[in-house]
């Protein structure tokens, strides 16, 4: 069973009186353990695709299925629960909570799950994720006391702490220098290979595309090399 299935997914936006199609009948199937890069120029629809895959937006038409569960027609409450359990997000601007330490930022998603793990279990998982992302020493630091690369490692640890089926990283390296960006993608790849975490990340950096196991390209809302449908 695939982790993610997009079937004939379209997403239109109303801009003034004009209706613009950001995605046009996209089909994409992502299998467990994939390390998939979505590439394409700015405005090609990468973020829209990842938003729909992450169930934070709804398609104008088509079906989105996550781990065998159709999610495009789920009510908001059920979507929140689904996201908390099955999806991890890594954002371009890290989006860490500035007043929490690295460890607390990593712990927070566990509190949002319908069934909150007990404190001891949470601490164990947080320590494990900080260890795997190589930032154990930064556990008590706040985001403003860390470099961009370190912050993104915290964000990756946060995305993975809930053991999601799918991690979505939208331009996760766009705010980092070339070397750090390569390290971050390397880290994601390593977690993918060691733990079998499924990653879908968008990038317009051609050097990083080479690190993906599979690359799909979006151009003018149309997907090339997507499989499925």
């Amino acid at each position, binding site marked *: 069973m695939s982790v993610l299935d997009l079937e004939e997914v379209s997403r239109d936006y109303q801009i003034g009186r004009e209706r613009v199609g950001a995605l046009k009948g996209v089909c994409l199937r992502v299998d467990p353990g994939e390390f998939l890069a979505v590439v394409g120029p700015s405005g090609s629809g990468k973020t829209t695709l990842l938003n729909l895959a992450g169930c934070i937006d709804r398609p104008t038409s088509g079906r989105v299925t996550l781990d065998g569960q159709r999610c495009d027609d789920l009510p908001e409450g059920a979507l929140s629960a689904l996201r*908390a359990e099955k999806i991890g997000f890594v954002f371009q601007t890290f989006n860490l*909570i500035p007043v929490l330490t690295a460890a607390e930022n990593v712990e927070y*998603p566990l509190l*949002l799950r319908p069934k909150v793990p007990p404190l001891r279990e949470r601490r164990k998982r947080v320590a494990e994720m900080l260890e795997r992302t190589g930032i154990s020493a930064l556990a008590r630091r706040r985001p403003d006391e860390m470099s961009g690369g370190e912050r993104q490692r915290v964000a990756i640890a946060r995305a993975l702490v809930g053991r999601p089926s799918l991690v979505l990283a939208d331009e996760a390296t766009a705010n980092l220098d070339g070397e750090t960006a390569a390290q971050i993608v390397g880290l994601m790849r390593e977690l993918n290979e060691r733990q079998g975490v499924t990653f879908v990340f968008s990038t317009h950096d051609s050097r990083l595309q080479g690190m993906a196991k599979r690359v799909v390209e979006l151009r003018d809302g149309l997907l090339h090399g997507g499989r499925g449908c």
Partner: protein
Amino acid sequence: MLSFRLAFRNIFRNVRRTVLTLAAISVGCSALILNGGVIFNIFRGLREDAIYGRHGHLQIFRRGYAEGHLADPNRFMIPEVEYPRVQSILSGVPHVTTVTRRLSFSGLAQNRDTTVSFLGEGVEPEADAKFHRQLSIVAGEGLASGEPFGVLLGKGLAERVHAGPGDYLTLLSQTTDGALNAIDVRVRGVFLGGLKEYDDWTMKVPLEAAQKLVWSQRIEAIVVLLDDTAATRAVRERLEDLFPKNGLDLEVRTWEDLALFHNQVVALFRRELHVITLIVSVIVILSIANTMTMSIFERTREFGTLRAMGARPRRIVGLLLLEGTFLGLAGAAAGLLVGALVARVVSRVGITYPSPPGSSRPYVGGIDLVPAYVIFSCASSVAATVVATAFPALRAARTRVVDALRQ
């Protein structure tokens, strides 16, 4: 717990803004505490006036006195023989400190060519002093049991009858069986009792002389002082239980039953207090609504992130309301501190009010910190902060996740 920590730390994100918000809340809170404190001080002054200036804590009358004494005053007098029995009962009741008898009457006072009407209060000289803490002797000296025909005149009455300490007056009144009677008295002193009408009309006469004037050994009321005003109702209930058991047909009325002026003023000021609380709460809400909105708006992307991670809208609202509650509590604590400090200083210095209507002297008041009202003021400030937070919080929670992340 982490949510509490998050809410708490968020307060310190923008220190300058937080300080401004706290200042608005604390000023509102201390304004409520101080306004309430002034009013409760006035209440206390009125209560003390009512108890120690006039009514005592309790008054004991013949049953039916309240309804019938105006039509037939003699019917509702207490026979003198019952007084020792009442005294004996009162001596066994906790909180009772002083007991005295009173007999009121009216008559004419004549000083050479001047004759004026007056209201007489027949009192026991020594005990009565304890019931009149507010009364001050402005000329001469107070009543003395050693001089049963030595009287005190209210300042206004003394002026009307052109008499002062050492002068002799002839008092005329009706006896209980309708005849006219007269006695000669000597003016021992002149008093100010606080209320102008009281001072213009009242003459304090030793009970012995008053009983001789009205030609009766009966008394109108037995007045009781307690050591604790809060015990008034309990003592009344106890006496109403004991009197019938001892064959006494008496009724007991509290100072609250008798002090109608006090009750009306308190009711009026309580309403005013509620209006002021409402106005201050609205001012606090308006003062901080803008900063709360700004603060929440700046964090839209953060809420989008939390929503993307699975937080439900109600969690965002809860988090922001918790922040509002923390801010409100901190502001209320600061307001309480400032309010208590100002109240202490002002109470030490005293606020001199001009003579209230009907009063014959200015009133020096302070600020009373009544625990229940202080808690109410703090709770109102916290509630106002939470209300000011609620609207932007609901708006933030309703923002679509993708829109919030785009901010």
